[in-house]
């Protein structure tokens, strides 16, 4: 029930964005950012809070109309880059795979396109640590976790030709408030905020 409440809320927000877009950003034909039917936008990025994970990602955006689009987001994250050995604890591996689909609303200005989207999908995390302290028996443990993921993404496209610059920011809505209503679980959201930069290519 809670989940339905939050999804309804964010759909309302998205809907309101489209209303503003239609009211305030009426495109002028010929001079504005061109509409593309299908784009692919590979990029690299990081989770900035804290800066510990490196992300390689791709966005596929199909513009159903000038305003609305269907979006696929895929990423691989190499987690915990800077702390793989600590106090006799070794991180043997630590990565995440992410696949999300969603819908977006776009607004246009002269040289850029702004897309706000609601994405949902799955995230697979896998990591293993080994404690090898000479005073203690050696212990290894691994975790493999498949979890839902949902969030809001802002995507800025800049450049009017076949190739363009793409900047993306992803704000997770998981685990807070979807899975856990405790404000402490916001830490989990913050850790998965992603900033990405890439080059987009118009396919159609």
């Amino acid at each position: 029930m809670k989940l339905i409440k939050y999804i309804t809320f964010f759909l309302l927000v998205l809907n309101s964005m489209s209303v503003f877009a239609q009211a305030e950003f009426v495109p002028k034909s010929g001079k504005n950012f061109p509409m593309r039917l299908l784009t692919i936008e590979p990029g690299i990025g990081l989770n900035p809070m804290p800066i510990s994970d490196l992300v390689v990602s791709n966005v596929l955006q199909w513009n159903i109309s000038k305003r609305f689009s269907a979006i696929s987001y895929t990423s691989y994250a190499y987690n915990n880059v800077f702390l793989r050995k600590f106090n006799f604890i070794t991180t043997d591996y630590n990565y995440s795979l992410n696949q999300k689909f969603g819908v977006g609303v776009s607004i246009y200005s002269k040289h850029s396109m702004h897309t706000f989207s609601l994405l949902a999908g799955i995230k697979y995390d896998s990591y293993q640590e080994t404690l090898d302290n000479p005073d203690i028996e050696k212990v290894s443990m691994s975790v493999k976790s498949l979890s839902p993921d949902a969030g809001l993404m802002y995507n800025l496209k800049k450049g009017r030709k076949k190739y363009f610059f793409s900047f993306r920011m992803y704000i997770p809505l998981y685990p807070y408030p979807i899975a856990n209503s405790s404000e402490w679980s916001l830490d989990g959201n913050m850790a998965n905020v992603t900033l990405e930069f890439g080059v987009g290519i118009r396919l159609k």
Partner: protein
Amino acid sequence: MKKLIPLLLILAFASCKKEEFSTSLTKSFSIQSVTNGANYTIKVALPDNYNPDRQKYATVYVLDGEEIFDFVAVNCKKISNELSTTNILVVSIGYGNDRAVDYTPSKATEGKGGADKFMQFIKQKLIPKMESDYGADTLRKNRIILGHSFGGLAAAYAFTNYNNVFGNYIILSPSIWYDNEIVLKLEKQNRTLNNNNHQLVFIGLGGLENMGRMLAPFEAFFQCLKNNYSDILITHHLEAHLDHRGSENPNILMGLNFYFSKR
């Protein structure tokens, strides 16, 4: 439409209101530690139909009490009702010192090593006051310590060095990595002394605590306790999909359920 968005946001956040324990059943007082000189604010959640003249109560000592007291107190009441068992006294220990002082067993980069003095305070001042003024049971088996993160480290330290004080441990996302896993060394040193006591231990972690320091020491601590203590009732739990802070409340619930159903 523009005016509607802040309203919707307010409604969304209002629906996530924090659980609060009844103020009429909450007592508080301040107490100064002789060992470290700090002044601690203590809050006590009393059970329904509280009557210390007729009954002695098991007591949970909650570290980081200023943050989690209400959540623990509300859920102790709820779980004990669900299981039709007597509720316990919930004792919140506020911050007399920084938690990096009171909850750390040795001096290292991340902490000052004041846990021994803090435990002395609990043992010599707080517990006697709870027993004399609030009807807390005097038996070790009716004392619980609950802590998360550095608080979990302090609870693990209580297991290794103050095992005669507490019989039950709810240890959540403990910082066992602290000072090259010093708690694991202390456990080994004091194993013979502690091995004759009955122990009830719950240790929990978030499944996504993948910062390169939590998982392997957590498992090592669990294995040490499970394999080396003859009279121990122990379980461990990884709270799926949640990280260090996010797993705190779900693991508190798991720990309390474990205690109330197995005590």
